[in-house]
């Protein structure tokens, strides 16, 4: 009976955790601006846009700061930065033996590093204190993606980026990094950050199914479709015994909101990288619907981690101006332009 009791306890604790909110945390800066009805002529509007473009173009990593990229060594315990991407769909590819493989296409957006929070400072913050309660603290890189017009955001939100001199980004994410994988602000992150054949973890919000019944949500079998079943086709049935505790246990599986939860998909293999369009093809599927934003980072799974040094701390285009190979394929995949497979 002891293992049964333990199982209930685990379910009880998790059922009390609040899984979804529609509002951001209280310590977030107010983000979106109410659209002002500014009576501005189209010529002036165009001029303002040109000024913005001139001001923010050709941003390069801030040199001369403490965070200059000295050649810091990679070691197997390094945690590199991750990347913000959009899941743009699913494409079928084939392996060299003809086996079909479902690959998710992830478009790495225009990522830039916004800020680095050193380990001591991060450990004092609310989230950092929780994460590193009994562990050695690590640093935190704030990365932004999808530059947008400053008009749609509040002044406080734009100030997060103006210190660095970047156009405000629609999306922000934090990535835990070891101090030797630090990047200076304004560093761009591209698809070249990853290596062909490596395993990545993808973190995203699952598809929102809304209020769902017990059959779809928990996989209950429901009741018989015919043979005289009266109003019992997709219901849950019994929700407890009469004897034990004589009440419904917390965590009892019932209809409710399904989906729209943050989940990891671990250990997905990168099978193709397109450097021209900044697109990664990952073997398998990823949490969330098409066109949703996800975060990609190197896997935590111990057997699939790096054995050799990846582009550390990130990929930089070669200084002699040579362009990288546009389309890199994994050795297991059949390249579409190559001759048909003969078994």
């Amino acid at each position: 009976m002891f293992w049964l009791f333990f199982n209930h306890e685990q379910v009880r604790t998790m059922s009390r955790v609040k899984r979804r909110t529609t509002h951001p945390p209280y310590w977030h800066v107010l983000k979106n601006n109410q659209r002002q009805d500014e009576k501005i002529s189209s010529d002036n509007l165009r001029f303002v846009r040109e000024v913005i473009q001139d001001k923010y173009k050709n941003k390069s990593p801030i040199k001369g700061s403490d965070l200059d990229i000295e050649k810091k060594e990679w070691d197997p315990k390094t945690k590199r930065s991750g990347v913000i991407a959009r899941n743009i769909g699913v494409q079928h590819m084939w392996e060299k033996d003809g086996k079909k493989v479902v690959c998710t296409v992830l478009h790495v957006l225009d990522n830039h590093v916004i800020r680095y929070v050193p380990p001591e400072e991060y450990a004092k913050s609310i989230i950092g204190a929780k994460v590193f309660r009994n562990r050695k603290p690590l640093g935190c890189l704030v990365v932004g993606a999808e530059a947008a017009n400053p008009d749609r955001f509040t002044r406080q939100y734009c100030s997060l980026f103006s210190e660095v001199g970047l156009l405000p980004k629609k999306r922000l994410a934090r990535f835990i990094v070891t101090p030797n994988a630090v990047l200076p602000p304004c560093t761009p992150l591209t698809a070249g950050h990853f290596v062909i054949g490596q395993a990545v973890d993808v973190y995203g919000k699952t598809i929102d199914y809304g209020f769902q019944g017990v059959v779809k949500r928990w996989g209950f079998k429901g009741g018989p479709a015919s043979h005289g079943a009266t109003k019992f086709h997709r219901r849950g049935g019994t929700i407890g015994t009469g004897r034990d505790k004589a009440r419904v246990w917390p965590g009892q599986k019932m209809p409710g909101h399904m989906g729209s939860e943050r989940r990891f998909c671990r250990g997905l293999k990168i099978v193709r990288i397109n450097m021209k369009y900044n697109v990664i093809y990952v073997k398998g599927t990823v949490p969330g619907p098409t066109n949703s934003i996800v975060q990609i980072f190197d896997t935590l799974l111990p057997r699939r981690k790096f054995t050799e040094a990846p582009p550390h701390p990130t990929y930089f285009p070669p200084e002699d101006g040579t362009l990288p190979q546009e389309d890199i394929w994994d050795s297991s995949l059949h390249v579409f332009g190559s001759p048909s497979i003969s078994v």
Partner: protein
Amino acid sequence: MLRRAVLQTFRQGLAQSFFKRNAVSLSETTVTHQPIETSNEADEKSVSKQKPGDESGNTVVVAPPEFRFMYPEFLPDPAMERRNRLKEKLERIDMLQRRSVVEIPEFYTGSVMAVTVADANSPNKFARFVGICIQRGGSGLRAWFILRNVVDKQGVEILYEMYCPLIQKIEVLRLERRLDESLLYLRDALPEYSTFPLDMEPERRLNNSVVPINPLKVKLRPRPWLERWERQNLQGVEDLNLPQRFYDKAEKVAKPWEKYDLMLQYRKTIPAEEQEKIFADVHSQLQQQEFKRKMRRRRGTDNEQ
């Protein structure tokens, strides 16, 4: 009176803009039994139009309007939630790459085709199947078609994925169309309508520029059938000779208002402007590939001589 006139013109304008936008897509819904012109021999008969020129003064190549019937898999799935222009563009590049290696000819449901596939379990490692195309679907790299034949009195259907790299060769032995877009009723028809010799030779077409429509009316076997064919408005089937109650029930269950539902058709199709852009790009690439193939063939015959 003036307000009503204004409203009327507004409504007309709306309808006109709808029709203009969907002129290409709406005509797809009503099965037009007009033979389709192909641009197979593109250099012999220049079907591709040249637009009078854009701002830079260059002539803009426009694909022939029949392309949306010849290559329907280049159009993406119209469901708006799942559309992404970048992904569709990348998929198209991959499709054209594959087409540069294997010639995937133009075909329709009702065409008789032969497909050679690499098969480890076959005696000579290649398996060839001949059959009539009864259905085709999918978009992008997932495009598929089903071939049906009757072999040793057993009906056999094989679904082929058009862009699978195991496919060595796709030949069209008889290029024609039928009166319906889907020939699934051949499963309930007499076997002679689905039987084609496995060693069938490719047939030469008399008129290369027009795809003929075979007005064949197929005889079905006696009931029971796999589907309720009387409810599907089939043109290519002989009179079903069913009791009147079947037709009465079909009328009750029918949805005759769907042909007037503009939004339904709009959601099922890609807008005409996007179709033009997609096929313009595809057309130029396919022309280049066709030219390269011709040169390879000519060089081959020269070498033989």
